[in-house]
């Protein structure tokens, strides 16, 4: 079975800059009504962690989920 990943966002640290959203190859992330990052399609995440590494605000944690 394909691996699943969880993408956690620290909403109090996210500044809604949009970098992670723009670079995610699977379009997992979007801005919510509060202009904070929200994983709207977590099931599509391939765990590449590009979003985590690019986040200037340390607001994203990608983990393999059970």
């Amino acid at each position, binding site marked *: 079975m394909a691996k699943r990943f969880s993408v956690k966002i620290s909403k109090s640290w996210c*500044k809604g*800059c949009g*970098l992670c959203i723009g670079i995610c190859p699977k379009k997992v992330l979007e801005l919510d009504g509060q202009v904070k990052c929200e994983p709207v399609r977590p099931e599509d995440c391939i765990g590449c962690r*590009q979003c*985590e590494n*690019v*986040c200037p*605000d*340390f607001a994203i944690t990608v983990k393999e989920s059970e």
Partner: protein
Amino acid sequence: MPREDVMKWLRQQFMPHIWCPGCGHGIIMHAMLRALTSLGKDPSKTVISSGIGCSSRMPGYIDSCTLHTAHGRSLAFATGVKLCNPELTVIDVMGDGDCSAIGGNHFIHACRRNIGVCAIVMNNNIYGMTGGQASPTTPIDAIATTAPYGAVDPPFDICRLAIGAGATFVARATIAQPQMCETLIKKGIQHDGFSVIEIMTHCHTQFGRKNKRSRPLDNFSYFKDRSVLKAKADGMTQDELSGKYVIGELHLDSGAEEYTKKYDKVIERAGR
């Protein structure tokens, strides 16, 4: 890298940090903390020195031994720390203005001295903190508050400057390669001598707005599209490389003796 390990290096009580949303300086700090984490460094034996500028705010958020010094003078402090305590890991973070304008003299002499300090230059081509004045790395024709009709002065290439002045490890990446930033910073820290890692970054607020790159993502794409790996660049002409950023390890001189080791010998001679 599990985030918990990296988080250990943050003064979390001061987060979120002061930088504008999407500022490249945060991408560089993140890469540097991943590098320190993966090298298994001890925060109590790691010193981060900085001058003044948006970039130089970085040490304030790092839970290690940190120094926020005077504009352009961070390398003088870093040199003093390393000379007194050669066992410490010493990193110096600088802006382009900090490094190549007011601190230009400190920079070239630190390069020729070859002291074991890793210098990270956060080059956003502008004085971000003070409102977008042109710096010595502002490209020709780019708009700045002090160059409203376009910059005229030819810019410095920080890496070539460092190599010319004698730095023994010199590398470049851009914020569009966060993973490469981490790898090169790791190598710079491990290098026994003066290392310079230039990271091309953006100040979308003060520079980008005036130069058609107002969103953080515009800048990410800009750097991504213009980055060329060293191996490929070696086969390209000067014309083909115009407007490009050559990335990777640009220079390594592993034979040069590190300064504190040379200085130990002076101490020994003097004590005879």
